[in-house]
């Protein structure tokens, strides 16, 4: 028999017991759709985490200054300024893996427009900051290097600040805002960035040149950076190298002896991101394997029904053998029946799974991420289930003795 005929015979046999075939398939449908939905949920969660970290900027290191020790109480990183402007310059010029570096000085202060006020995070940065954070302006312009040099009283605003001070979809460029009674010209509005992984609103911030911040907000120029240094590399692979370079550089510059403790710390956000991703991955794997178990149960259902079917159709097998079906023809017939069940179960499961994932994504506001490879794997796996669980009943059928089979009542 050629393959087309084998499939036709199989489909006809299955259609004779529509309800039974459907119920058998249901096991596989549920298994496959569960796998797809679970993986989609996992991917959605992963994408959310990835998004959150990406919005902080990619390939990012944050260098924090050391801690104070006052009467035995250690203040934590950043509490004692140890990073100098010279350190920043050295990082920019000597650490070859570093692409951009910016200081980030921050404080919280009320920002006043003509008729509104809003307390927000006020930051002093260099123009590189916006490249590091991959954060363009949508209106006006960003902070320019000349602004830094001149210590210009200009600010760019995050969208939340714009909404609070000027109302929704207002254009703040050209207006003046006051911070600590000092007027600043709004030169730009940043694109919407959204929330951090911890739920912090990135758009609730204003940025000005760090020189301006130093002179107008902090008051007076200092040797130390009263904040942190943010560094980015061109690719994620260079992060480790950059981290090592900066550590060696700073230890050298701060004259820390070998074995001495760093008076600064370097945080690798990508590492934090990947740790979070790991967690989500584990969860996804867990969910998917539970779903896979149900697929396995579906396979056992197929085996069960195929065994019943072989017994029921013993006589038919005998007739087929008497007119010339070889054992392998009989094997093929039952195997293809099992495969057909599992294959259609797989396809229906994919449809149901995609639908379910869609509903869940809409319900929880996740991005809908259906991995095509998972669909292919799920369908293939259901096929494997069909073969694996169909093989034993099919072999049982093929091994029947034609005389016994014909005599079977």
């Amino acid at each position, binding site marked *: 028999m050629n393959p087309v005929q084998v499939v036709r015979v199989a489909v006809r046999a299955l259609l004779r017991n529509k309800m039974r075939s459907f119920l058998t398939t249901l096991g596989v449908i549920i298994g496959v759709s569960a796998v797809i939905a679970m993986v989609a949920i996992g991917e959605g969660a992963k994408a959310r985490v990835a998004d959150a970290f990406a919005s902080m900027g990619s390939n990012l290191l944050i260098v924090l200054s050391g801690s104070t020790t006052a009467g035995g109480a250690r203040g934590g990183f950043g509490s004692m300024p140890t990073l100098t402007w010279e350190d920043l310059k050295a990082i920019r010029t000597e650490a070859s893996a570093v692409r951009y570096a910016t200081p980030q000085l921050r404080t919280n202060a009320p920002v006043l427009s003509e008729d509104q006020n809003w307390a927000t995070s006020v930051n002093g940065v260099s123009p590189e900051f916006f490249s590091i954070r991959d954060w363009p302006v949508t209106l006006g312009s960003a902070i320019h290097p000349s602004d830094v040099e001149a210590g210009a009283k200009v600010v760019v605003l995050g969208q939340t600040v714009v909404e609070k001070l000027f109302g929704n979809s207002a254009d703040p460029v050209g207006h003046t805002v006051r911070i600590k009674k000092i007027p600043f010209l709004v030169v730009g509005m940043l694109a919407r960035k959204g929330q951090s992984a911890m739920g912090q609103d990135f758009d609730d911030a204003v940025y000005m040149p760090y020189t301006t911040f130093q002179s107008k907000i902090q008051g007076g120029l200092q040797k130390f950076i009263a904040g942190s240094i943010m560094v980015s590399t061109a690719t994620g692979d260079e992060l480790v190298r950059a981290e090592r370079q900066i550590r060696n550089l700073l230890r050298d510059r701060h004259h820390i002896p070998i074995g001495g403790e760093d008076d600064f710390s370097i945080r690798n956000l990508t590492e934090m991101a990947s740790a979070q991703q790991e967690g989500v991955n584990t969860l996804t794997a867990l969910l998917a394997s539970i779903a896979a178990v149900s697929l396995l149960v579906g396979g056992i259902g197929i085996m069960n029904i195929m065994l019943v079917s072989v017994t029921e159709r013993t006589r038919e097998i005998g*007739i087929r053998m008497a*007119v010339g*079906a070889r054992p392998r023809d009989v094997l093929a017939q039952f195997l293809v029946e099992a495969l057909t069940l599992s294959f259609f179960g797989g396809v229906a499961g994919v449809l149901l799974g995609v639908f379910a994932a869609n509903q869940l994504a809409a319900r929880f506001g996740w991005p809908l991420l259906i991995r095509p490879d998972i669909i292919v794997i799920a369908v293939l796996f259901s096929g494997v289930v069909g073969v694996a669980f169909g093989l034993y009943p099919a072999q049982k059928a093929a091994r029947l003795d034609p005389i016994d089979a014909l005599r079977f009542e």
Partner: protein
Amino acid sequence: MAGPLIEVEHVAKVYRMGEVDVHALRDVTLSIREGESVAVMGPSGSGKSTLMNILGCLDRPSAGTYRLLGEEVSRMDRNALARVRNRTLGFVFQNFNLLARTSALENVELPLLYAGVSGRERHRRSREALERVGLGDRMHHHPNQMSGGQQQRVAIARALVTRPRLMVADEPTGNLDSRTSVEIMALFQELGRSGITLLLVTHERDIARYASRVVVMRDGHIQSDLRQTPQAADPAAAAAEVGLP
């Protein structure tokens, strides 16, 4: 003509049933020429069914040799036997053994399906076979829509469709009334005239008279093996005999 169609030498068959060996056949030697119609008779347990299963390539002998068309069948594996059943033999059973819920045409096509005959050819030959047994107008009927005689005709068409050299019939009239039985025997005789060798297992003397040779089995042996002039199966005459219209 070359050698005989069937050559059985010292064939024995032993079944093992629990602790006991059952000797279904003990040393049977038989030779059947092409074109013969042989009726195998004997009481139940005489080994006639076992002999038929072996001759029909459904079973293999425990000892001895069986040559079909000069080919040693007794040593073939299951796949090769399936091929012989498909190409050289046609089976007719007492209970018809048609596939239920499958049309007459499809039932007849079944052996051709396993012979790998293409769709159109399969159709044509199956129609032809059904027409030959007088069921040209019932091709799309299912077995449960047909009388016993019609079902047996479908089975004969199925046996015929591969153009076999040997037709093996196991009590083909066992489930039929006497008039239909004669009709079926007339059909067999007609096939015999076209050169098909017929091997018929029956316990009815009335049926055995239509054969050209009668082999009687007893306790696994051939008790007698006699040639005779076959009586022509004439349904009308047979009906008259039992007083039917």
